């Protein structure tokens, strides 16, 4: 009866913007042994009173239900939306990727960057910094290709996500 399949879920957690709120969320995950695949947080309300935590997690359906219920128990948590469950949504991630190389590899890096629509935001004699936005998979495959062409340093933002269509998370 229980489904033990591990599912990946994207959660949008609206929280009061107060000290310690991120520690509460992160502590909940570590204390109860839940996974965090990625987590981003920034203030989203006009008066800076609320922040949105975009969180990617994975677990069995029972665990995912627990995670949501546990998050909702936290006093500064206003709302938890499970974007994966609620329907179509857009997921995006931003990355800055530095590659150190020279010669033909350098030209190849530029060519691949062009295919991925990555922008060059910094260049030096033996390096580029690319800026890239897209799904986590797209960024992942870009990074994989770059690793073949030189030493790579990666800064990734983690996933941010939002529902498709006119409904906001507040309305669901």
């Amino acid at each position, binding site marked *: 009866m229980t489904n033990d399949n591990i599912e990946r879920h994207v959660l949008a957690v609206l929280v009061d913007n107060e000290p310690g709120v991120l520690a509460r969320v992160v502590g909940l995950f570590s*204390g109860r042994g839940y996974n965090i695949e990625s987590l981003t947080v920034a203030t989203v309300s006009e008066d800076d009173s609320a922040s949105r935590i975009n969180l990617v997690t994975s677990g069995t359906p029972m665990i995912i239900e627990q995670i949501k219920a546990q998050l909702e*128990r936290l006093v500064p948590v206003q709302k938890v939306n499970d974007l994966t469950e609620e329907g179509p949504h857009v997921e995006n991630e931003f990355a800055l990727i530095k590659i150190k190389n020279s010669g033909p590899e350098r030209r190849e890096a530029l060519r691949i960057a062009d295919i991925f629509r990555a922008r060059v935001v910094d260049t030096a004699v033996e390096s580029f910094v690319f800026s890239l936005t897209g799904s986590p998979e797209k960024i992942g495959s870009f990074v994989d290709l770059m690793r073949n062409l030189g030493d790579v340093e990666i800064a990734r933002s983690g996933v941010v996500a939002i529902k498709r269509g006119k409904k906001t998370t507040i309305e669901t």
Partner: protein
Amino acid sequence: MSDNIMSGADIVIKALADQGVEVIFGYPGGAVLPLYDAIFKQNSIRHILVRHEQGAVHMAEGYARSTGKVGVVLVTSGPGATNAVTGLTDALMDSVPLICLTGQVPTHLIGNDAFQEADTTGITRPCTKHNYLVKHVDELSGIMHEAFEVAKSGRPGPVVIDLPKDVQFAETQYSSPDEINQRHYFEKVTGDSEKISEAIELIANAKKPIFYIGGGCINSGTAACKAVADLVRITGYPATTTLMGLGAIPSSSPQWLGMLGMHGTYEANLAMHGCDVMIAVGARFDDRVTGRLDAFSPNSKKIHIDIDPSSINKNVPVEIPIIGDVGEVLSQMLNIWNQKAPNIDSKALKKWWNKIDEWRSVNCLKYDQGHDSNDTIKPQYAIERLYELTKKKETFITTEVGQHQMWAAQFYKFEKPNHWMTSGGLGTMGYGLPSAIGVQVAHPNSLVIDIAGEGSTMMNIQELGTMAQYNLPVKVFIINNEWLGMVRQWQELLHGGRYAESYSAGLPDFIKLAESYGMTGMRAKHPDEVDDVIKRMVDEPGPVIADIVVSKEENCFPMIPGGAAHNEILLGLNESQEQTQSEDGMVLV
């Protein structure tokens, strides 16, 4: 409004008074001196000086659980706060509403490793329902009142308010509870009526039903307990209670099967295993209750009523979850039940009761108490006699943790809720003595007994000083077998009788210990002395330590070994001489 300007310390005391607080359990220190000064200058709130901050929290727990009110603790910064952590965790696990005020170094020193500084909000984050660091005195009134709401609402729990010393000195205007804007934090109270109708349908058509009643019922209040008792009576169905739920329905009800779980009764556990409909009321499917999860009540449909959505489907998936206050939901259910007056399958029910009576006839709690001159006192006998000789009085029982706790749960019977205080979730040794003090403070004219083990009681024995200072007539009833009995029992059952470090060497003479605090000490060594000691203990107007010297090797049965299912319950050692436990089970605590 300038007359409402007051210091942070005065605001704290005023807010406590406005929240109906009558007593604080605390211990002073440098970072809370302004608060103690404010306490000194008023008369509405009583302060009980404890001997250790852990004791303060357990006292507040005993106070809260026996009254249904919020317990309040006041401790200083650093070690004061860290000493409170065990008690806070205990209160979190057992859903006890507490406010714990902690002193903190002044705001400008926070983070500087100042004297007696600790990251109190960081340390207590996982062991509280919520906590606050008050950085500015203007936030103080709001936080105080909100904290009470958080502690009481939903599944209750402890809340820490960390108060830097400069905030206690700073002045501002006080706001009363009704002037505070509540946050978005609230809990669903009434149950979903569709779900309730489904549940009624399922209950009415059950052939082998059982009510499984937990501490949530007691937390919800006496109305909830009355409602569940009514529902049990009207349906004629059997009911079992958890360790935390003892007293939720009267133990004198013939429909009560006793406690379930690891040391629960044979009939309760087998009925849980064999039922076709389980109605879980304010219970959380704890591992001590369920045993092996994949073999837990395999053929039943389950209804789960709980105020805490995170308790639903946590360990055991249920067919009909009803989120709401147990009392509200039960009264909704009773209304519908009375309107519909459904026909229950009385033939099937009779068959089910016959089966249960068969299990009952095993008499799983039986023990042999001999009365020859060389016979020793059986712990079960001591507790059973204690029950018989105190049941007519308004008696409150607390316990420590271990074998004596399980025997107390098995042999002491409760007619009413809020008369049984024990550390269930966390299993905190040293809980019983301070908890009894808290109960006695709340009920000065009642009989309060800490059924203790000699091991556990030593863990907070310093609180005898608190008992002595306030002449609180708590009776400490020590089931003394000179062993950490539950540890010894597991070592006997699972570790080949290698009794590593489980003998309590160096115990005090409890009579002399009592006398050194100006209390009365007494001892029973022979079964025939037990009644006399109990009577003298009960009649003594002051505090008493009764040292009941019991047989050392007695084990607590029935027992569901870790990793076993309800129907693998052991009734005694003779059937389990060989190692009965699987390797997987041994890993479990």
